[in-house]
């Protein structure tokens, strides 16, 4: 009986822990498919988490927070797009700047607003779904019907993006641009505009992942609360071989690692807990080693495009 409860809990929290990573990884998969690398997801997620908490407090609903977070993430995506697409500057260093910028904006903004209030404000957050009582079903209830709405949005997003990339005209354009912007341009595809759209979309998605952390997983912002998930999301794009469903699967894998880590921690009080906390990070490194070599990377990833005049 205990085993059942254990596994139901493990699987239910697998989805919970996977969702923030999944949002960010899906957006990054699309923008990398178009050839733009954004290593600054961590910073965007931090800003998303902060803005979501701020917006939720301000408007009184977590949806208000989500809107604000998406706007902030899109703005950071636009900044990265401007630097890497229009200025054709170094995408990696621009991404590093976004990491540091996100650290600063979220920390400064938080302490100037919510963090400085006393008593600490209560942040409205998403409540788990019930689906007319289906969530009370044994086993499947908590796993499939008792999650936050953002969990379903992330999963649906993975499926939709998969159709978008592989079954739509726009998706074909995106993939063509990522393989050869010159050839794509020659057949009349708008390279720069499409790239802008994917990078801004990637920023918005990363911010939604951050919003999940502060308005679903927790109710409130904590400085540095993203703690590496932005980088794990980039790793998920590699493991998922630049496909949305692959990125989703990779995110679920890391979600499960995190869920297992926390459970094993409480079952083994003799082993120092730090070793369990390390586990997902070590796993990311190991997985990168095994997956990175088999390269399906978009051919023009990180390569700027100079439109002919």
């Amino acid at each position, binding site marked *: 009986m205990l085993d059942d409860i254990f596994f139901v809990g493990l699987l239910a929290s697998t989805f919970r822990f996977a969702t923030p990573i999944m949002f960010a990884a899906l957006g990054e998969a699309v923008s990398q498919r178009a050839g733009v690398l954004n290593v600054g997801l961590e910073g965007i997620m931090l800003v998303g988490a902060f803005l979501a908490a701020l917006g939720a407090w301000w408007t009184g609903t977590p949806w208000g927070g989500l809107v604000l977070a998406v706007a902030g993430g899109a703005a950071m995506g636009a900044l990265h797009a401007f630097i890497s697409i229009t200025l054709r500057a170094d995408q990696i*260093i621009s991404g590093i700047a976004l990491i540091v910028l996100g650290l*600063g904006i979220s*920390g*400064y903004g938080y302490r100037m607003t919510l963090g400085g209030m006393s008593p600490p404000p209560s942040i409205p957050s998403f409540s788990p779904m019930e689906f007319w009582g289906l969530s009370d079903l044994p086993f499947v209830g908590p796993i499939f019907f008792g999650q936050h709405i953002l969990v379903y949005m992330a999963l649906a997003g993975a499926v939709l993006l998969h159709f978008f990339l592989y079954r739509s005209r726009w998706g074909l354009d995106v993939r063509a641009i990522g393989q050869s912007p010159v050839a794509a341009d020659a057949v009349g595809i708008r390279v720069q505009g499409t790239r802008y759209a994917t990078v801004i979309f990637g920023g918005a998605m990363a911010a939604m992942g951050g919003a999940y952390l502060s308005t679903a997983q927790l109710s409130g912002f904590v400085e540095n609360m993203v703690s590496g998930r932005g980088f794990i999301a980039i790793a998920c794009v590699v493991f998922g071989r630049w496909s949305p469903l692959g990125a989703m699967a990779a995110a679920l894998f890391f979600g499960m690692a995190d869920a297992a880590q926390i459970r094993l921690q409480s079952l083994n009080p003799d082993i120092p807990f730090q070793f369990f906390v390390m586990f997902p990070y070590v796993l990311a490194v190991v997985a990168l080693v095994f997956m990175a070599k088999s390269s399906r990377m978009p051919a*023009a990833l990180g390569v700027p495009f100079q439109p002919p005049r």
Partner: protein
Amino acid sequence: MRSIQFIANLPAPWRVAAIAFAGALLISALLLAAGFSPLQALFVLIEQSLGNGNGLSEVVVRSVPLTLAGLGIAVAFRARVFNVGADGQIIFGAIGFVGFSLALPGLSGWVLLPLSMVAAIVGGGLWGGIAGVLRARYNANEIIVTIMLTYVAFQALGWAIRGPLQESAQIFPRSDAVPDGVLLGTMIEGTRLHWGLAIALLAVAATYVALRYTSFGFRLDAVGENPLAARFSGIRDRTMIALSLTISGGLAGLAGAVEIAGVHGRLQDAFAEGTGITAIAVALLARLNPLFIPLTALMFAVLSVGASGLQRQLGIPFPLVHIVEAIVILAFVIAGALQNADRGVRDA
């Protein structure tokens, strides 16, 4: 677009000034939005860091680990290997230093100090080297790996000071004090300015010579410019990539040791928090030139010490520092792109 064209048309020094001015406007806007006076903030920042002897010595003390870690970042970035995990390497350097010096307390300081410093370089070098080898052999992205290893290092530090390295009294999460013989004494009586400054400046000279006057430096730059071309001209590009991260980590490890030996005297939580991130801005602003790194490290040390003062005196949150760092990195990347446009560099 027109405004960017306008900046691009300016002569280079004016261009930097224009970007700096835009950055200053942005920071001022952030301060105004939060109800602070930018001029007063600037005044307090300068007064707290440069306006008195104590502040000045703190600035130099702060610049020491930034210089060492910044040198490490520069070595890796020159090979276009992006070490963003110096914080983890600093931790392992410090663990190596403290672990070694506590294990052999009987030795005289003259022997123990250099050996412990070597242990720190090995500790940091190992932590960077892992990422280097994984990048070179398996093409594992070093940005992700160095960050992941930094999170592992945070946990390792947390465990070490509550487990094997915890103080004998077993009260606080910190190590015993290191033997007196390995402490770096103060250079100027009555300040906290320690001999780590001399170590940092020696490292600057050594790195400069290695990068500027040896074939190692040439090969490093060749790999950074174009790894394939370097390989075809007989340079072992993968070895250079692994080596650059190992050396980078070793320098960061030395920064960790100097911070322990010069400032804290023992291992404790968050003893050099954020140094590795600031060091990226330090190295980029110095345009990856070792000779400029102590100067840019001093600038960021002024910012950091001044911002602590701002927080104390005016209640302006410290993370503002990171916003400034990000603006500096962005300015660097934008200036670099405009320069390429000048030279008529065309890509794909």
